[in-house]
């Protein structure tokens, strides 16, 4: 182990006990604070809010929107998927529940709600499968369109069941059968309590999801889907799962709506419903879970308030639209987000959700799985005749390359030599035109970065690919989670922290010397620190084959020395390929160097050999090329 590492580890060990005291003192009280506050708020609301003119019906309606919004916030606020079609699932849950109860097929209220929720989830699975094939604007447009499809279906094909434009009237008032006693829930406050229980349970579950390993991956997907994929997560599966969860919340909320007003209105399916949900969530603050509830309060209270002002009532939606545009433009985090930002600012420390984390540090080598290869010097990564042509442009032609166990292999070449293309093909990011890539004897040509990472090879990027809105610790968790849990695991109700996870995260942070910045948000860090974190993410995957794409790019002299030392220190037990412009660093680090020139392999050999090679000198001095290195 190198000196650099030993010092950081010792420094860590000294700091650890102090932190441990701090974090354990918060305990359950601090960690469950939001849950307790929400519970108290729900209990207190009936005694306080009527003072400002809020009726039990209004509060119940707000809670139904809030429940609907919990799922949507997981989808949009946490995962970054903006759906304009949530009404489809709200309506499905609502109409299935209402139909079951009115037709007498199912008389048990809870069972009817459950079936409605399940049906909405199934609809979510189908629509999610289709719409998640594309991201960004495509996703927003296609969810909106499919949402409308459900509205049409309700009005046409399923008219006999849904009543078309009339909806389903006469949904029986809720009655809970507890075997020996039947509880009849009348409208007004009893209904509020009934819905409040659902909301509270929904909130507890959503909080757990957010704080689970699953939820942590969701946040990574929102921050940088490309890197989350490259770090070994099958993000498509995560997206689909959270889409189904959001549909389930929507379905339950829809079911409660019908029960609450004893009528299931067809416009539950309308685009307006999806739009209202989006607007409420953004106004209240996305990514806070309670934002949608807050937004619904503003929307519904404003609506009722403006109706009482006579003429202005007609313009309430115009006023709301203007407020919305202003909020999106200048106050992006909504009301709840604004409050949280303020609190964070006051506390001067991020409200990290992981104050419960352990401070154990794994040994630097423990995060690397034992070498599966038998002997040093056997090939781990091989490219055979790799070629990439873009139309007439020949980026790479017939390159053979071998990385051996334990080797540090440099790839150099003047600008435009095809280094990045070659690297992307080695990393499984890019398919080859012809030729194959093998990893420990297994063909990996174009199998995709997620699979490659799970096999034990990871790449650090030339341009930082970090999760800017997360802290260093949360960033490093993403690759560690991929290694401990595989490319997908549905553990949304589990706790995030385990000794294994924490000790590996701490070790990786220590290796890149960011222990003191562990709870700093990446967006607040310096470029040099980000650069080290970039390398740290690749290390934390536990991969023992690492590809570094210009690790020194953009660094000042001091940082360069640090990173070169870091690269040397992590060599033990790992094989590496480095692409770099800095020749001195390369000759110092690499045992073997491959020179690419105009898309072909020009030379290969030890540093001294390469230094003396006349072809390489000519290539670099511009004899054969106008570009200089």
């Amino acid at each position, binding site marked *: 182990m190198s000196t650099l590492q030993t010092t950081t580890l010792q420094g860590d060990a000294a700091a650890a006990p102090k932190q441990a005291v701090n974090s354990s003192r918060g305990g359950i009280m601090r960690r469950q604070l939001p849950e307790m506050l929400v519970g108290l708020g729900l209990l207190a609301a009936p005694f306080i809010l009527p003072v400002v003119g809020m009726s039990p019906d209004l509060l119940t309606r707000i809670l139904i929107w809030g429940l609907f919004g919990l799922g949507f916030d997981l989808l949009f606020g946490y995962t970054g998927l*903006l759906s304009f079609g949530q009404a489809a699932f709200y309506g499905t849950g609502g109409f299935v529940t209402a139909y079951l109860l009115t037709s007498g097929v199912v008389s048990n209220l809870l069972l009817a709600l459950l079936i409605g929720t399940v049906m909405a989830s199934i609809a979510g699975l189908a629509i999610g499968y289709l719409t998640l094939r594309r991201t960004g*604007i495509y996703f927003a447009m*296609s969810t909106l369109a499919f949402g409308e499809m459900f509205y049409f279906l309700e009005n046409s094909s399923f008219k006999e069941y849904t009543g078309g434009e009339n909806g389903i009237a006469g949904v029986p008032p809720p009655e809970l059968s507890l075997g020996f006693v039947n509880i009849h829930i009348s409208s007004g406050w009893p209904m509020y309590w009934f819905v409040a229980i659902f909301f509270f349970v929904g909130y507890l579950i959503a909080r757990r999801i957010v704080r689970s390993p699953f939820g942590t991956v969701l946040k990574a997907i929102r921050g940088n889907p490309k890197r989350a994929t490259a770090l070994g997560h099958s993000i498509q599966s995560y997206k689909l799962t959270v889409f189904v969860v959001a549909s389930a919340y929507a379905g339950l909320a829809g079911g409660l709506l019908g029960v609450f007003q004893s009528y299931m209105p067809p416009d539950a399916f309308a*685009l307006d419903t999806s739009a209202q949900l989006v607007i409420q969530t953004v106004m209240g603050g996305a990514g806070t879970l309670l934002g949608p509830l807050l937004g619904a309060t503003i929307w519904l209270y404003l609506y009722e308030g403006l109706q009482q002002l006579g003429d202005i009532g007609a313009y309430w939606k115009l006023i709301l639209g203007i407020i919305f*545009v202003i909020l999106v433009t200048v106050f992006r985090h909504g009301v709840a987000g604004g409050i949280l930002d303020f609190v964070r600012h006051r506390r001067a420390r991020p409200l990290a959700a992981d104050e419960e984390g352990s401070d154990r540090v794994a040994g630097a080598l423990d995060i690397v799985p034992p070498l599966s290869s038998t002997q040093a010097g056997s090939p781990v990564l091989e490219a055979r005749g790799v070629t990439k042509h873009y139309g007439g442009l020949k980026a790479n032609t017939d390159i053979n390359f071998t990385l051996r166990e334990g080797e540090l292999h440099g790839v150099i070449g003047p600008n435009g030599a095809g280094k990045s293309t070659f690297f992307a093909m080695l990393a499984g990011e890019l398919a080859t035109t012809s030729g194959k890539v093998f990893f420990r004897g297994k063909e990996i040509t174009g199998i995709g970065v997620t699979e490659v990472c799970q096999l034990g090879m990871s790449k650090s990027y030339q341009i930082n690919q970090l999760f800017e809105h997360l802290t260093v610790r949360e960033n490093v968790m993403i690759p560690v989670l991929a290694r401990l849990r595989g490319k997908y695991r549905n553990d949304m109700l589990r706790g995030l922290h385990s000794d294994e996870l924490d000790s590996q995260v701490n070790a990786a942070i220590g290796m890149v010397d960011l222990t003191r910045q562990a709870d700093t948000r990446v967006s607040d860090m310096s470029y040099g620190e980000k650069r080290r974190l970039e390398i740290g993410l690749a290390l934390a995957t536990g991969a023992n084959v690492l590809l570094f794409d210009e690790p020194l790019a953009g660094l000042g002299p001091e940082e360069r020395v640090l990173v070169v030392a870091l690269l040397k220190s992590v060599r033990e037990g790992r094989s590496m390929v480095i692409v770099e412009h800095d020749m001195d660093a390369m000759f110092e680090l690499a045992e073997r160097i491959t020179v690419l020139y105009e898309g072909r392999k020009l030379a290969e050999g030890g540093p001294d050999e390469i230094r003396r090679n006349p072809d390489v000198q000519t290539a670099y001095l511009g004899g054969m090329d106008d570009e200089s290195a």
Partner: protein
Amino acid sequence: MPSMSLVFSQLFNGLSVGLLLALISTGLTIIYGTLGVINFAHGALFVVGAYAGYTTYALTGSFVLAVAGGSAVALAVGLVMERGLMRQYYSRPPEDQILVTFGIGIVLVEIVRGLYGGVSLSVAPPSWGTGIARIGSLIYPLYRLETLGIAAVTLLLLYFVLYRTSLGLIVRAGIEDSQMVNALGINVKRTFLVVFGIGAMAAGFAGVVNAPIVALTPDMGFRYLVDSFVVVVIGGVGSFPGAVVGGIIAGEILSLTAMINPQYSDVMLFAAMALVLIFRPQGLMGQEGRE
């Protein structure tokens, strides 16, 4: 089995509906292609154009002036929108762009509702568009035939502007790499403004041309917004030919299924979109890798 002439007339009808959809979608797609923004206020601009055309028509009695007036108002609204807000959004995430255009759409629709009320209005076809056309054994409303012609001519005109003029060259270069175009000394900002204006105007123009066929309500825009989304998802977002092909496909699906069972015509449209998403997610004419 529907008769041959019915099939023909529906095919024709589909083409007329399709080209109109293509026209609306073109506006959406060129804005996206150039600026990378999907304008969720596009349906609202369609409504603004239609109502402005209605007023011009009522004041002047000339349908041609109404078309000009409706397009001009939509153009003006588009320009103000770009200058006032959208410009700040080009560097923000797509979600923000969607949200703000969606919000602007609500504001525009509510302004129309405030000015004209919520009841539906009707626009009579122009004098040169009343009556019936006979093409062989086919009997067809004259105005529908004319909208087909108008839409086709406008699409050709747009095609010409985008593919045969220097503005079009800049726009297409800007799609590839706006920074580079800027570095070459071309004012990309102004080009963006012009493109946004043209996109908005296409929506407004379609709104007026379509007005004699439908009843005007402030909320009608959403329907067209959804349909134009389906069209561009089928055709490929950002692709001009994709919008035209997608529009015609959508129009034919709507009118041919309407012949068999009108209940299912909308549903079939979405089914077509689902098929495209499954088998060719980038759209029929879309390019791989563009999001």
